[in-house]
């Protein structure tokens, strides 16, 4: 027993020395902390924001950031609106879009991928043709085209972003299902008289959650950037809703006179996306067996 403890302690120390353990923890924890902060700010935005994000103070236009304790900590924009309040409210849109896109596209992608891989044949062919057509569009271009057709709005934006983001789930899940359907536990379930739906929902899909989690984190990061890009181009959410992308679009013409206008919303996008990517990397490192072989993070 004692030798076993000693052995595990030595293993752990070796792992720490090799830089595996602390890295995993630092990455996953830093990322997790940033994502948690982003979720909390989004959820409790109205309570945290010092002012109404759309309140125009024409006597306080274009004020520089004056630091903690002042009326406008991060300054004001060309209409005298408080930047800090707008940045906080902006996180709500990013939060809603990011989670909605990940869940909807995850659901669609996992179901279609599992069905495609499990049944094969004509069903597989039809789903894979759909994947091919949608995937042939350069990213963002389909989003722009759909938004031009549906018009601005939060719901439309989510639809436009889901349009392509279910594909990575579908492709990976299909591949995994192809190998899973030949496994003994599926055969056992079939022998016990389980229906195809039961096999897919109870036996196949639970085995795909781990991989989908990693795809989900990267899909979340890309949807935040895509949402900001579409809003920046003026085809995202309506202009009265403060988002990080619309704030950047508004700031463009004041770049030379007011550096704080583009700085803070952009920084928010960057830090949030960085946090999500760190979390995704951490999760992948933990789930990736190659790590043990190379002794370095992949």
């Amino acid at each position: 027993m004692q030798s076993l403890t000693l052995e595990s302690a030595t293993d752990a120390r070796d792992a720490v020395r090799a830089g595996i353990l602390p890295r995993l923890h630092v990455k996953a924890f830093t990322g997790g902390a940033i994502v948690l902060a982003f979720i909390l700010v989004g959820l409790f935005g109205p309570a945290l924001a010092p002012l109404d994000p759309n309140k125009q103070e024409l006597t306080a236009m274009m004020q520089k950031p004056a630091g903690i304790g002042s009326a406008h900590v991060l300054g004001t924009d060309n209409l005298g609106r408080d930047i800090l309040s707008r940045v906080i409210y902006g996180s709500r849109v990013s939060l809603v879009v990011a989670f909605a896109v990940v869940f909807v596209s995850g659901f669609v992608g996992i179901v279609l991928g599992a069905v495609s891989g499990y049944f094969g044949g004509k069903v597989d062919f039809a789903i894979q043709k759909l994947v091919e057509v949608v995937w042939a569009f350069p990213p963002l271009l389909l989003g722009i085209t759909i938004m031009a057709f549906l018009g601005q709005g939060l719901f439309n934006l989510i639809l436009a972003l889901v349009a392509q983001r279910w594909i990575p789930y579908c492709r990976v899940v299909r591949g995994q299902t192809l190998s899973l359907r030949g496994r003994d536990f599926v055969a056992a379930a079939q022998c016990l008289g389980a229906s195809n739906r039961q096999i897919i929902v109870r036996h196949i899909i639970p085995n795909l959650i781990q991989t989908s989690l990693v795809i989900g984190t990267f899909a979340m990061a890309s949807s935040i950037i895509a949402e900001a890009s579409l809003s920046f181009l003026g085809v995202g959410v309506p202009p009265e809703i403060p988002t990080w992308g619309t704030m950047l679009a508004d700031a463009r013409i004041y770049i030379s006179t007011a550096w704080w206008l583009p700085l803070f919303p952009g920084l928010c996008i960057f830090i949030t996306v960085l946090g999500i990517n760190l979390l995704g990397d951490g999760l992948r490192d933990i789930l990736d067996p190659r790590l043990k072989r190379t002794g370095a993070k992949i």
Partner: protein
Amino acid sequence: MTSYLARRLAGTIPVLLLISLLVFLLIHAAPGDPTLLLLGEETNAADIAKAKEHWGLDQPIYIQYGKFLVSVAGGDFGKSFKYAEPVIGVIKSRLPATIELAIFAILIATLMAIPLGVWAGSKPNSWIDNLGTTFGLFGISMPSFWLAIMLILLLAGVLNILPTSGRSTYGIAGPEQTGFYILDSIMQRNGRAVWDALTHIFLPALALGINMLGILMRVTRSSILEVMNEDYIQTARAKGLRENKVVWRHVTRNALIPVITVVGLELGTLLSGSIIVETVFSWPGSGSLLITALNARDYPLVTGLVMIYTAAFVAINLIIDGLYAIVDPRICY
């Protein structure tokens, strides 16, 4: 190999047809009447009807699509509503600017990412590895349009050392030959114009290439890490080769295959990234043209641009498939 590529090429035709149908329906179902947008709200009904007849918008949508397909097959995308010129001509005049920008973005990304990725991957867990990994992570997390704005703020607003809009300073560039300003200036032996074009392209190319740089760096690094474990690398070391030779001659050449895939895949992202970066830098390419066309509901121009972008993306993927076999002789189709 040839038959595989021929099959792939044939397979892209139905995909392109479906894409054209999807785009055509999406654009035509969009809210906003293009005749009203172009002629103004004050126009009378007779003029609107005349304009609709002129552009064929009064006909049923399937006839419009049928006519569109026939003309596209003949290389004709119709006439732009906004510019009153053939769509293909308008796109042709803007395409070189986008291609030139994309080439420079790829150059910046690959020239920085591959050496950094090789260096980081060959020395796992060293300071250079940590620096490279952090840099890669920053690269993929950076929104290109924010970087574009911050670059304008810093290099043009504060330091005032680089131009921030357009492709050249007025009066410096010579007559257009190919549409590629740098190439034209080199052919005309106009050193001042070459330098001027390079200073104009640097910031947009850097902003456009940053995500690709981050992704390429990460892929190169992990690919190098994988190859370092292969038996033939042990053999190379065992026969007494210097580490530098092992890394550059044996590891890097084998590790570059996934890197090529990523370059190909990222070209699509680069195409869409150009839409936003061109808008920020007022770069007169096809990306900014798409935004102008969308705002004006210029159906033929939008359809033409989306089709060309998508066809380019499909073609790139085909070329990448072909390249595999050249780079790695073990792959045969």
